């Protein structure tokens, strides 16, 4: 590993100033689970690493008065996975964060690092997309809040400016009756990245499906919402055939590449299968919750 400077700012202002001062030389390090590997493999060679762990408040996890949940960027995956607040909000998040790598990775890797790394095969992004999360960003121009879908640009590329830092993710208040799910399909080991992953959030009333959000991971340059497919289901009663049609549409819309987890064609086919399974799981879960209990 080539040598670098390591700095630990104690405030976001100081962090942003350091990033501005060192420009391209500087790299933020959060948990380091991805970055350290990249440094070791010489994919990046930062001159200065800016560690965020001493900045107070970045690892908070709290419910806001309006019912939204705010998760600080430095929150570890394991913390999200074990949080009862998060579980109450929606258990699909627990499934997604509990699927990241291994327990060692989850105890070290952070939410903000995961998002800024912008690996399309990561587990948290699809579920955060399906839950319509927003991200909070701090930079030289102050604080901003974006829909999370705006973050991802391309393989390992985000819209973050050179001196911008992800500070938190905000999950909006959950409409009553909404159900989400996350399905990760792995073709090799238990701790592998997804071959394809699908997150769905929706609610169903007597008319049909509403607030349908489908997000697919590992099936293109970015974790992506598939709005064209979502609209097919919006407002429809969504019987089996409709679900299959939506799933097929998702298969058409994704843009996977061939790698050691499968060919592009196979991943496309799997995007169909797992979208259908995710939609049916949401439907079944809603049906189960609607059933009167004695």
């Amino acid at each position, binding site marked *: *590993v080539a040598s670098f400077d390591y700095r630990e700012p104690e405030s976001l202002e100081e962090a942003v100033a350091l990033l501005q001062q060192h420009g391209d030389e500087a790299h933020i390090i959060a948990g380091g689970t991805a970055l350290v590997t990249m440094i070791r*493999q010489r994919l990046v060679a930062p001159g200065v690493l800016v560690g965020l762990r001493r900045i107070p408040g970045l690892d908070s996890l709290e419910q806001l008065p309006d019912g939204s949940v705010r998760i600080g960027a430095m929150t570890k995956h394991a913390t999200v996975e074990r949080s009862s607040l998060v579980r109450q909000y929606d258990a699909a998040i627990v499934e997604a964060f509990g699927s990241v790598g291994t327990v060692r990775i989850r105890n070290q890797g952070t939410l903000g690092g995961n998002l800024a790394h912008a690996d399309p095969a990561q587990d948290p992004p699809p579920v955060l997309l399906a839950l319509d999360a927003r991200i909070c960003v701090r930079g030289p121009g102050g604080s901003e809040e974006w829909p999370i879908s705006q973050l991802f640009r391309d393989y390992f590329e985000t819209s973050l400016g050179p001196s911008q830092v992800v500070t938190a993710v905000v999950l909006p208040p959950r409409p009553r009756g909404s159900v989400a799910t996350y399905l990760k*399909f792995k*073709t090799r080991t*238990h701790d592998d990245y997804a*071959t394809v992953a699908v997150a769905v959030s929706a609610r169903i009333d007597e008319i049909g499906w509403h607030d349908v959000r489908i997000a697919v991971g590992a099936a293109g340059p970015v974790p992506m919402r598939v709005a064209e497919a979502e609209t097919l289901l919006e407002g429809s009663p969504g019987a089996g055939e409709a679900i299959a049609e939506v799933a097929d549409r998702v298969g058409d819309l994704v843009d996977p590449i061939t790698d050691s987890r499968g060919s592009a064609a196979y991943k496309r086919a799997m995007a169909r299968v797992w979208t259908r399974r995710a939609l049916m799981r949401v439907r079944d879960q809603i049906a189960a919750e609607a059933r009167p209990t004695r």
Partner: protein
Amino acid sequence: VTAKGGPPDTPRLLTTSEHRVEGRLKVTGEAAFAGDVSRPGMLWAAFRRSDVPHARIVSIDISRALNVSGVHAVLTARDIGSPRFGRRLLDQPVLAGDKVRFVGERIAAVAADTREAAEEAAQWIRVEYEELPAVFDADEALAPGAPILHEDWRDYVFLGGERQAVPHANIQGHRVARKGEAELESIFARAWRTYEHAFTTPRQHHGYVEPHAALSWIDESGLIHVVSTNKTPFLLRGEMAAVTDAPEELIDIDSGYIGGDFGGKGYSPDEYICYYLARATGRPVKAVMSYTDELTAASTRHSGRIVLRTAVDEGGRFLAHEGRAVFNGGAYAAAKPLPGLIINGGLDALACYRIPNVSIEVLTVYTNTVPAGHMRAPGQVQALFAGESHVDMIARDLGMDPIDLRLVNILKDGEVGPVGEVHLEVQATAVLDAVKREARWAEPKAVNRGRGVAIGRRRIGRGRIELRLTLEATGRVIVVTGMTDQGAGGHTLVQRVVAAELGIPPQMVEIRRESTAHAPFDPGAGASRLAHLASQAAVRGAEALKERIEAAATEQLGDRARPAKLSDGQLFIDGSKRGIPLEEAAARLLGPAGELVALGAFEAAPHGVEPEHHQFCACVVDVTVDPETGEVKLLNATLAADVGAIFNPIGHQGQIEGGFAFGVGAAMMEELPIEDGRVTSLNLGDYKLPTSVDLPPLKVALLRSREGPGAYGAKMAGELSNSVVAPAIANAIADAVDARILALPITPERVLAALEAGGPRSW
């Protein structure tokens, strides 16, 4: 685990769970591995590696590398006399000289104060290539007009005899084994049915935790010191002597603990260059591979393409069998230790069966890819996947139960195997019966569930080994050995056998591993030889030491008319019924020399000289297949294994179960992808290995044989269980969903494609 049968004469001590000799050191992190060793003034080595698969080197510019601060030397082939190295055939350049033959090949070496400086300098070395047509596929390398990798192959040095002639410059090794009729076509023509199937298996990496490491320096006396991860240090000493022209007496190889081997640690590419850099700089020089280096430029399992053809009669009896296995050997044969330069397991596709007429051809072929070498049951993993799938396909076509077809053809005591080997005490039928019973073979299965079987046969390793035993005044017995322990428990085995033979507690026997300059000869772990040879040498050494002790006790303390006896660690002198514990008497026995020394030596003739004991292992796996995704879940597995005496019960269980896990990796996920000669899995995040959560519940039935070549009838364990796993799984998938997998690994995508192709009707 259940153990049944066998002779009752194993010493009691060996039936209790062992304490590993090195366990505490490893658990506490105190054990020093080669990569942990440092010397004052030590430099680090780094390499400029080839970016292209096949090219003539036009020029190498090292000027900018020499200017990097901290750099002490930059060497190219010309600086060191263009030496070549290898375990048998010295065909791999220490540094590429005129040509490069694979991406990742070492072209120039840097020694610098730090690893970072060495790596930086290596990046500044400019190489100008004239690219040559490259060949990556073994069959293509044999086709007319294929690029020739080694124009001067006839000039290469071959260690230990004469190299067998090869029919083509791109062939590393070639063997044809025949039995019965010379002409098989008429038998095939007359047969009730004939079957032909083709299979492919991938490159794999061993996946050991510890990467290769080497450290070399030359002391004032001219002695060349090499600290190494090599598991066969005595062989490496000979190889280094042949390459460097230094006499063996001036080379001392020190291989300590080895962090995993699986066949990959007999090949040592960096020890040579560390020596040359040490010679050039006058400093100790160390090299440690990164895992990317491991995956791209160490050695791999051979990929294979195997075509099998078998003629059967109405009862399913095998009449004739023809096999051809073409293995991709990569750019160099240097990693192959056997004289034929093939992987002998490639002959074993139908080694479990009685077949009167056989013709099997095995080839290893040069291609412009990373070299292939030995990996746990080399050749057999590939051949058995093919052979046991082939047998299953025949059974299904004949409408026979797969186990019944195997039982019809399985070898019996005294019978001769497909390539002429005579089998003693064959437990194959018992193994099949046991696996059938333990796995509840006949139990009904739900939809999309299947059950598959496979059986394999493995030889027990042979060769020569020596141990030196010394009684100390404290009563402790010191065993000096050159045996490296790659994790399989060889040191613990020797300790326990010596202790059992002398009747003293294991902690009174100390295993002292020494470097080649100080230890008696050791052949190194590998080819499943260790339990056989080391146990015999330990028994012989203990017997010899016991004689020396008794003679000394008679001489020093007793009366020649009534010789002293050592029994259960007690000395009985002058016919006394009261024994003296050895530790009390030891000091008085040593005499003026201050020690009692005995040598434990053992040698078993090479394979094929005399009838041999072989080992059989059968596996049944239950799977469920998701027909929409092709995903295969392993529900449970059963192994029935033919074993001899067990020295380390926990270690033995670890070998059998670990072999199963290793087999699951080969079956389900491991493939080192090579595109246009370039390995594309560059780390263990991409190259996936199974962990405990990826494994199904495993039931193991051990069948204890009466005989075996090791002490107390011991056999081997290391390469027994891994080869049968992949074919059992493939056969279970065929049973579940009527889809036949002809290539490893069994990815969901392959299963789905086989399902869509409509079942196993490929012939």
